[in-house]
Structure formats: C-alpha cells, structure tokens
C-alpha cells in the first residue's frame, strides 16, 4: 500500500450493502453517542445528573401501567397517520395535509355522534361514523389529488392550505354545537349515553385503537410490498414517463392512492373522537400530521420500520414532557434533547452508506465506527442523509457542482 504524504486527512468512499446487524449496530451506537452528548449538555447547562434525567425520561414513558398504555395509544395514533401518508409519499406525492384530513374525519365522526346520537342504535352509529370519517378524509385528499392529476398543481402547497380550511371548518362547527352555549367548546359528546363511543376492550379504552392500528400496519405493508397497486404506486413515484410507457394510468393511480391516504387519516380522526377523546377541537391532531412526515421518512416509507420510528418519537416526547415537569425546566429543554437524538440517528445513516478513510501513519483505517469521527462529521452526515440515499455518482456530481459554483 502506498503512503502519500499529501493524502487528504479524511476521504469518503461508498460502501456496498452492509449486513443488517452491522447497519443496526451503527444506528444503536449513534443513539448511545447521542445519549452521552445529551448527558454532557445536561450537566453543563443545568448541573443535573444525566443518569437521573434519563431515568426520569424512562419513567415518564413507562413509569406506570397507565403511562405505558398512554404511550401505546400515542404511538398507535402517530403510526396510523404515518401509515396514511406512506402510500402517497411512496408515489412522491408530498401529502402534508394529514392534519386537515384528520380534522375532516373527526368532524364527520363528531357530527354523526351529535346528530344521530339519540336516534340510531349504537353499532349502527359507530358504523356510520366509520364510513363518514373515511369518506370525509378521502374527500379532503381527493381535491388536491384531482388537481394534481388534471393540472399538475403543486400538491405540497395545496394539501398544506387544505389544513387551514379544515381547521376553520372545525372552528365553525365547534361554535354551532358548543355546549353549554357561549363556552366555545363542545365538551364530551353524548357523555351520558356514550352513543357512538367505541367499546372498551378488556377494560382498557386504548386497547382497541392499538389493535386496529396493528392490523392496519401489516395490511399496509402487504399492500405496498406485494400488491399490484403497491407496485404501480412505486413506478409512478419513480418515473411518470415510465409509468405511462407501460400503460399505467398516472392520474388514476394518483387519485386512487390519495383516496386511500385521506381515508386512513379520516379513520385516525374517527379513532380520536369515538375512541379516546369523545370531543372535537381544532387542535385535535396536535401537529401529528407533520410529525408523521418525519416518522415516515425515518423509516424510509417502510410500514414495519415506522413502528420503531414512531415509538422513538413518542417515547422522546413523553419522556421530555416528564423532565420538564419534574425538574421545572420548560418544554424547550426536552425538545433540545429530542433534537440532539434525532440528529444523531439521521446522521448515522451516512455511516451506513459511506465509509470514512482517515490518514493514519500511512495506513488507511476505516473508522466508520469511531465515535470521535462520528461527532466530528455529524454535520456533513446529516446533510448527506437529508438528501436521502444519494448514489455515489450523484454525490460526485454534487461535489463537482459545489466546487464549480
């Protein structure tokens, strides 16, 4: 091996596919490093014992049986929204309208419960709620989908704007149905009769939601991976020209997929209103329509992977909340820790695709697992992975353009 004194200190090469256990090893290591960094920052800025802080985080998420169930419920809802967005994302249709579609679904559910709560028998009312929420969510997604299919409008802006329309619509109906008058709130719907409420399974009001989402996760995985529709979605996402060339009707696929995406968002709205909250507010979705975007991306649009990524985000959120209460820190502190951890997890993807060579007394040492290198180049790493699985060629192009410009 030749030793060139002027060899750059670090240079990057592309790796072949890593065996899964090494890839996960790198991810796990990234989380550990993130925890160490968080600990150091915690000690420096607050003087608290980092281990105690982590223990608090853990107990915030799992500390009691009740907390564990809430974690499960939060996870189920976030996962459900992510599942809804995934087919659209696989088609490279950036559906940022999760919030609006959830609100549309929950508004439909709430209206069924309010309008028919005293006339229809329970099971029928629930069925009506389901159908209405699916239809409402699907309709909310259909509008941007049709415009995209017909006139190639920008779906990102369109779906985003639809969120505000949905919020205002809900705000209007909250006033129409407010109880008591003048309170500006709907309050618990059908509190005495529990009409339209989802049944409580095995004495736990979260269990049904969790089961529904579990089934949905597997169904979505199978649909995307093995079905003809799933295949069409991938082809349209990768190349519309190729799709047309093999006779896939692009417009039809876009509309069909967005109906599905919107319908599942609508279902989430149903689960929230009929299953857990039993009320309707404009903040029902609580920004989860956007958090779900991150969940889906982190898992590279794989429904099974999204179980892990949504767990991670929910765990961090609940843990961070607990830290702020226990130690009297504000919510932002939890957000900082969450940010650091996510940064390292996203950054670790770089080390799965690329290898760092560090000049070391004439010998090139692959230092992909060196923690020092990891934190030193984490910034580059995050940028690299942000551009998502870039091929060696693409990287090369970028590098060159970078140097030219």
């Amino acid at each position, binding site marked *: *091996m*030749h030793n*060139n004194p*002027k*060899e*750059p200190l670090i*240079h990057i*090469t*592309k*790796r*072949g*596919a890593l065996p899964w256990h090494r890839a996960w090893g790198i991810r796990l290591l990234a989380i550990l490093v993130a925890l160490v960094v968080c600990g150091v920052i915690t000690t420096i800025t607050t003087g608290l014992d980092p281990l105690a802080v982590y223990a608090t985080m853990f107990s915030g998420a799992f500390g009691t049986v009740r907390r564990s169930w809430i974690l499960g419920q939060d996870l189920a809802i976030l996962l459900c929204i992510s599942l809804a967005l995934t087919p659209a994302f696989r088609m490279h249709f950036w559906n940022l309208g999760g919030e609006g579609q959830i609100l549309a679904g929950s508004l439909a559910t709430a209206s069924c419960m309010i309008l028919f709560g005293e006339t229809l028998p329970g099971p029928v009312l629930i069925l009506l709620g389901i159908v209405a929420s699916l239809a409402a969510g699907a309709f909310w997604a259909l509008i941007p989908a049709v415009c995209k299919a017909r006139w190639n409008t920008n779906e990102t802006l369109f779906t985003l704007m639809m969120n505000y329309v949905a919020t205002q619509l809900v705000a209007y109906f909250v006033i129409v149905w407010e109880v008591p008058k003048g309170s500006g709130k709907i309050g618990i719907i059908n509190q005495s009769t529990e009409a339209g409420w989802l049944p409580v399974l095995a004495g736990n009001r979260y269990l049904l939601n969790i089961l529904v989402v579990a089934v949905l996760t597997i169904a979505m995985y199978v649909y995307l991976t*093995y*079905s*003809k*529709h*799933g*295949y*069409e979605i*991938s*082809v349209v996402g*990768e*190349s519309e*020209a*190729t799709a*047309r*060339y*093999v*006779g*896939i*009707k692009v417009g039809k696929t876009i509309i069909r997929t967005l109906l599905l995406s919107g319908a599942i968002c609508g279902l989430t709205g149903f689960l929230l209103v009929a299953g857990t909250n039993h009320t309707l507010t404009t903040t029902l979705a609580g920004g989860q329509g956007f958090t779900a975007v991150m969940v889906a991306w982190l898992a590279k649009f794989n429904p099974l992977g999204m179980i892990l990524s949504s767990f991670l985000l929910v765990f961090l959120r609940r843990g961070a909340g607990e830290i702020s209460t226990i130690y009297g820190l504000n919510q932002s502190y939890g957000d900082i820790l969450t940010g650091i951890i996510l940064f390292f997890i996203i950054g670790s993807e770089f080390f799965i695709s690329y290898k760092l*060579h560090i000049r070391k007394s004439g010998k*090139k040492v692959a230092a992909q697992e060196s923690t020092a290198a990891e934190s030193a180049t984490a910034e580059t790493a995050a940028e690299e992975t942000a551009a998502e699985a870039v*091929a*060696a060629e693409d990287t*090369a*192009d970028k*590098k*060159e*353009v970078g*140097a*030219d*410009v």
Partner: protein
Amino acid sequence: MDKMTPAVALRGITKTFGPVVANDHVDLDIFRGEILALLGENGSGKTTLMNMLSGIYYPDEGQIFIDGEEVTIRSPKDAFDHGIGMIHQHFKLVDVLTATENIILGLKEKGRLDLKAAEKRIREICDAYGFVIDPSQKIYEMSVSQKQTVEIVKVLYRGADILILDEPTAVLTPQETDRLFAVLRSMRADGKAIIIITHKMHEVLDLSDRVAVLRKGQYIGQMATRDTNAQEMTDMMVGRSVSLNIRRPEPVDPKPRILLEGLTVRSPEGILKLEDVSFEVRSGEILGIAGISGCGQKELLEAIAGLQKVEAGHIYYVEDNGEKEELIGKDPLEIQKMGVSLSFVPEDRLGMGLVANMDLSDNMMLRSFREGHSVFTDRKHPHELAERVVDELEVNTPSVSTIVRRLSGGNVQKVLVGREIASAPRVLLTAYAVRGLDINSSYTIYDLLNRQKEAGVAVVYVGEDLDVLLELADRIVVLCGGKVSGTVDGRTADKNEVGLMMTRLGGGTERA
C-alpha cells in the same frame, strides 16, 4: 517541453465501490500534443479513472504525477489548478444563465465582476480554436452541440491544458462531430493533452494518435493508432476475437404488419414533427429508419406505441388474415390488451423504459405485473426472467436485486432490450438500441434483433450509424424533416445516396 515527460502519469490507481473493483492498479501516461483514445467495454472503468483525474473521486490507492511531479487531487478545484478539465457526458450548466455567466461561474477572480472582459476572453478562445458560440446566448436556447461547446470553452477559460472528453460524440450529428474533431485537432496542435472516451471505432482511427485499452478495470495495453485497426482494438477490449460482420438473414415470409397512412404529428409547441408519413412495416423483416437526429423518429415510434397525440392519418395493425385495426386513439395498455404486442425500446432508457431505483427483477415486472387475477404481483417469474436475461445477455451486475441505476449504460440497455424481447412481441420498436453501447454489446443486440426477425417479428430499428443500418436492415425508410424522403433496399443502397436523402427530400433524384 520534453516530449518524453508525460503530462499526466497514473501509477497503480485502484478504486473500489463497495464490493465492485472499478479500477485495479491502472498505469497510464498522457502526453502533450497528443490525442489519446481510452477504450474499453461498458463498465470497464474508463469514466471512473477519468473522474479520479478530475477530482470527483479520490483513488483508494496509487499515485498521480503531473509533468513528473506527484500531486494530490482532492476536488475538481485541485484538478483545475493542475490544468485538468473534464467534459462530462451529461452537461453541468445552469440553463437560465448565458454562456458567459456559466463559464465564469465559480471563478474567484480579483476585482469586480466584469462580464465584458470575460466575454472578450471567451471570444478570443473561440477565435483561436474555431468555436462558434454566442457568449450572450442563454443555455436553454442552445442545441446539444452548442452546450457541449460551452463546456469545452469553460475548461479552456480556466486554463486547462489537459482535456478529458467522455463520449463527446454520442449526442452529436455527423456534421457536428466533424466540427468537434477539427477543434480537437487544433487544440492538439496547440500542445494540449487530450483524452477522449468513445465507442466508435472509426472515430478512434480518424482522430487519435494513441489508444489505451481497459478491460474489467485493468489496464490491458496501449499502441499507436496508425499501427492498429478496429479488429485488433475490439479484440483487446473484449479479451477474445470478435467478428465485426453483422449477419443479415433473408426475411422470413414478410407480410404487412403495421400500416402507416398520412401520419401527421405536431409537438405540444405546435411544431410539425411528422408530415404525411406513410410506409409499411413487415413481419420477419428489419425495417431501418434513417435520418438526422430530431427528424421525427421519436414521434414516429411513440405514435405507434400509443404515447403520442396524432393530428391526422392512420396507423393500422394488420393481422395475419389481412384484418386491419386502427391503433390511433388507444392508450399503450389498450394496445397491449388487444393482443397487439408492441415492444418499445425507448430512446431515453432510464427516463422511460426502466425505473432507475428499482432492482432488475422489479423492472422485469413492468410489462407483466398485471397478469393474473390476484391483487398481488407475481414475483417469481420476473425474478427468473431477470436471471435469464442476465445470463443470456451477459449483463454485468452483482445480482438481480441490484438497482438498475447502479449499472453502467450498456448493461441498462441490455436489461431493457431483454425484457422487451421476453414479452414475445409481434412488433419490436427500437430507438437507438445501441446508443452508448460498446462494440461487443452492440453486436449482441444486433444478433438479438436478427433472431427476433427470424422468429417472424416485425422489427423497426431507428439508428444513427448509417454503416450499421446498411448492414442490418432489409429496407430503410429515410426521414428528412418529418417527411419520408424515400425508401431503399438495405442490400443494394449506397451510403452516399442515403446520406443525401437524409439532408434533402428525395435525395439523389433531385440531384441537379
């Protein structure tokens, strides 16, 4: 300058991408005042090697010497500092800027930005070497050849005296190629070192002083161009003796299969692309379509495949019993469904024929995934088909689960042609089926087309190389500006005659 000190000397250069060894201890010398042709099959590591010289990749091992001095090239900027400039296959220009703006982009010159002075220097470079461009023209208004000129001027403006051109003629017409070669010769006379990567043997013989051959990432050897010939170079590239004659079996029971009558097509911008085109495609025969690129070949094939809106005329599919079915107005799926098997190898293989981010077996499914009543796709057969194609067409890939984007151009093409042929077509339309392919792969494709012809398929071959068309096709339809300039017999036609028909309607007959 001492002729014996190479401008660039590569020693023991090795580069790997994961498990793939792209370059394996390559040594290469490049001298000033010389044009070196770098030869090799698709995927033999030519482009990778040049990318290391131009700072895009960093070699895993090995040394680079410029004028006898060891250097480290870490970035394209380092490469420019050493006077190395590369013109890539895919241009790297900003469309909305002018030629001048593109050329000075990224240069850190002292003082204020002086577009006038830059323009003056650009004109001087153009005058010195005989380039014809308008420095104030925007890139998006330029032809492919003009864009390429801008790329070349860009590297010259930066003071490059070692120029690398990666398949520069792949996108040029014969006339544009001649002009480029004239420029390259005048640069050689000026003492520049020039490396050109090309698959076209006659260009190598015509232009270069020396050839160097790579095979499977390894340096095989070099020789003076005047001492060698196409056969020897091809054998070196492939590693065994290859026949350079194209087989042309007699047509098998030719019957009309596709009938075009007065076909007229307009582009979305309203430009007439095809005007009153009528001809017949017969089964068991290869019909060549000749013409200067952009003469309506693309629109013609897309119209038959159902991808192009037709303004007037008819396209009939003729059954064996003489029954005619109109194809216009049907979408590609209907054309497939009505039992008309049109297999279409599009011009833009990665943009249209294949899904770049899917693996080989998923790409095989594109044609067949709708088969069966199940809502699920059948993955077994496409997988087997992928393995068969890899095996039969000698596709160079780590496995059938490699994503297509990672394959080199020639292998991508083989995958596409292999899939189209596997669907057992009755009509096979191909556009530039061998564009960018090395000579060995090209001959594999010619052979595949011939076997289809012998099986009674009607083959339409749109080609850019007249020599190949004349050797391969039974009949040749010559297009000129969207009209049929004439139809000739491939066996008796004369190259000059066809060339004239390409540039002037009717060609020879109108000769005064």
